[in-house]
C-alpha cells in the first residue's frame, strides 16, 4: 500500500546529509515550511545549497538555518528582508555564496528541472549584469539568454491538505514555489495543515499530483513566522 505519511518533521528530514541541495518553498512567510526547516536546523547538517526565493526573516526559519552556518550557497532572487540581517552579514563576510537569479527565471529553471528540460532560452535579463557570461542566441530577431534547469536532492514545501498518496492542495498565495519544487526534487517533503482520507480531495482540484511528492507530514498549527519575528524569537 502506498502511504507517504511520516509521523514527524524530524523523521521526514532524517536522511538530508551534509552538502545536499535543498529547495525551500515560500515567498516571504507565505508557504514557508517553518517546522521542516527547524527540523533541518536541529539535524545540524552543513554545506547545504539552498534554492529559495528569499533568505528568511528575523532569526527563525531559513534565516536560522543560515545563521547557524549550515548553508554554503543560496540560489535566490531577493535575498533582502526588512527584518533580517542574517544573510547580509554572512554574505559580506564571504561566508556564503549567492547566485542571484531573476524571480521568473528562478521559477522556470525549477519548472524545467522538474520537467526534464536541461536548459532553455529566456528574454529576461538580456543586456544586464545577470546575463554576463551566459550564452545568448537570437530567435526571430530578438536576443535570449540561456538558463539551466535546476534540480535538487530534497524539497521542503508547505501545503494546506494532502492524502496518503501525496496529492496536495495549497492555500492562496502560499502556493507560490511549492508545486514546481516538488517536481524538481528527488525527495519532496510537504508539511500540511491536514492529512485527509484518499478520495476526499477532489481529483479535479488537486494542484500537485502525488507522483511528485515522497513524504507528507501533518503540522496542524504551524508557527507563524511574522509573529515569531515580531516577538524577537530565535531558533532554537
Amino acid at each position: 500500500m502506498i502511504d507517504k505519511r511520516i509521523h514527524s518533521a524530524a523523521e521526514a528530514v532524517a536522511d538530508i546529509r551534509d552538502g545536499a541541495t535543498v529547495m525551500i518553498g515560500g515567498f516571504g512567510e507565505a508557504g514557508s515550511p517553518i517546522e521542516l526547516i527547524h527540523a533541518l536546523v536541529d539535524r545540524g547538517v552543513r554545506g547545504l545549497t539552498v534554492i529559495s526565493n528569499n533568505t528568511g526573516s528575523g532569526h527563525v526559519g531559513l534565516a536560522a538555518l543560515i545563521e547557524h552556518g549550515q548553508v554554503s550557497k543560496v540560489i535566490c532572487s531577493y535575498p533582502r528582508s526588512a527584518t533580517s540581517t542574517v544573510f547580509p552579514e554572512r554574505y559580506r563576510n564571504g561566508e556564503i555564496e549567492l547566485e542571484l537569479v531573476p524571480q521568473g527565471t528562478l521559477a522556470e529553471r525549477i519548472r524545467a528541472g522538474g520537467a526534464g528540460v536541461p536548459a532553455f532560452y529566456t528574454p529576461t535579463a538580456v543586456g544586464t549584469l545577470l546575463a554576463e557570461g551566459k550564452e545568448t542566441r537570437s530567435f526571430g530577431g530578438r536576443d535570449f539568454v540561456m538558463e539551466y534547469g535546476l534540480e535538487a536532492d530534497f524539497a521542503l514545501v508547505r501545503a494546506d491538505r494532502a492524502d496518503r498518496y501525496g496529492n496536495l492542495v495549497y492555500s492562496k498565495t502560499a502556493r507560490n514555489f511549492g508545486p514546481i519544487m516538488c517536481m524538481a526534487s528527488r525527495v519532496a517533503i510537504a508539511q500540511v495543515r491536514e492529512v485527509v482520507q484518499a478520495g476526499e480531495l477532489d481529483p479535479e482540484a488537486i494542484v500537485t499530483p502525488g507522483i511528485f511528492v515522497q513524504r507528507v507530514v501533518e503540522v496542524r498549527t504551524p508557527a507563524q513566522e511574522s509573529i515569531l519575528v515580531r516577538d524577537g524569537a530565535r531558533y532554537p
Partner: protein
Amino acid sequence: MTQAPARPCAESAPHLGWSRDEMAQLVACDIADGSYVNLGIGIPELVAAHVPRGHELVFHTENGLLGVGPPPDDAHADPELINAGKKPITALPGAAYFHHADSFAMIRGGHLDVSVLGAMQVSMRGDLANWMTNEKDAIPAVGGAMDLVAGVKTVIVLTEHTTKTGEPKLVESCTYPLTGVGVVDRVYTNLAVIDVTANGFVVRAIAPGITFEDLARKTGAPLVDGRGERSILP
C-alpha cells in the same frame, strides 16, 4: 471587480506638481478598460484606488494571484494572502491563484497588458535601472522586475521626477546597472507625462504650475515638446 480604496500616502513632504495620488490617477485613467495589470511596490500600488468608475482592471501579483482586491483590515489579514511587497491583500470574486512558473509565464509570455514600476533611472532610449545602485557593500536583489520589463506588453514607469537629493531620474544614459534595455514605453512623474520614442523623451503633459523650462532643468536628457493627446495603454 471593484477596486481598492485609496491608502493614505506614507509621505506628505512639500511636493512640486502632481501629488502621488494624482500621478496614480493619471496612470489609472490612461489604461484601457479590461486590461490585466501588474503594479510594482511603492507609488504604483496607489493606481488600484483610482480606476475610473465603469472600468474594470484585473490586477496581478507575481507571487500568484489575478484579481487582487483592497487591503483587509488588521483583523482579516491572512499571512497566506499577500502581495509582491509581502503586504496583506484580499482576493476579489473571480480571482485565481497559481504557482510561480504560471505567474511568470503570464508575465514573460506577453499575457499581461501593463506593468507599472518604480525607477531609479530611465534613459532616453527606454533603458530602465531599478534594482541596484553602485553602492559598495549593497546586497544585490532583483525579484521579478527583469521578467516584467522583458515580457509585459506595455511598461510604465511611475516615479518622482528627481531623486531625494534633486538628481534627475530621466537621463541620457543610465549609470546604475540595468533592469532591461529599451523597455520603457512611458514615464509618469510628479512633473510630467513623457513618452519614450525613437526620438527620445517626448513630453505629453506637464503638471499645473510647471513650465517646459522648469521641466527641462530637472531632466537629464533632451525633451521634445509633444503636448496634446496621448495614447491609451497598452
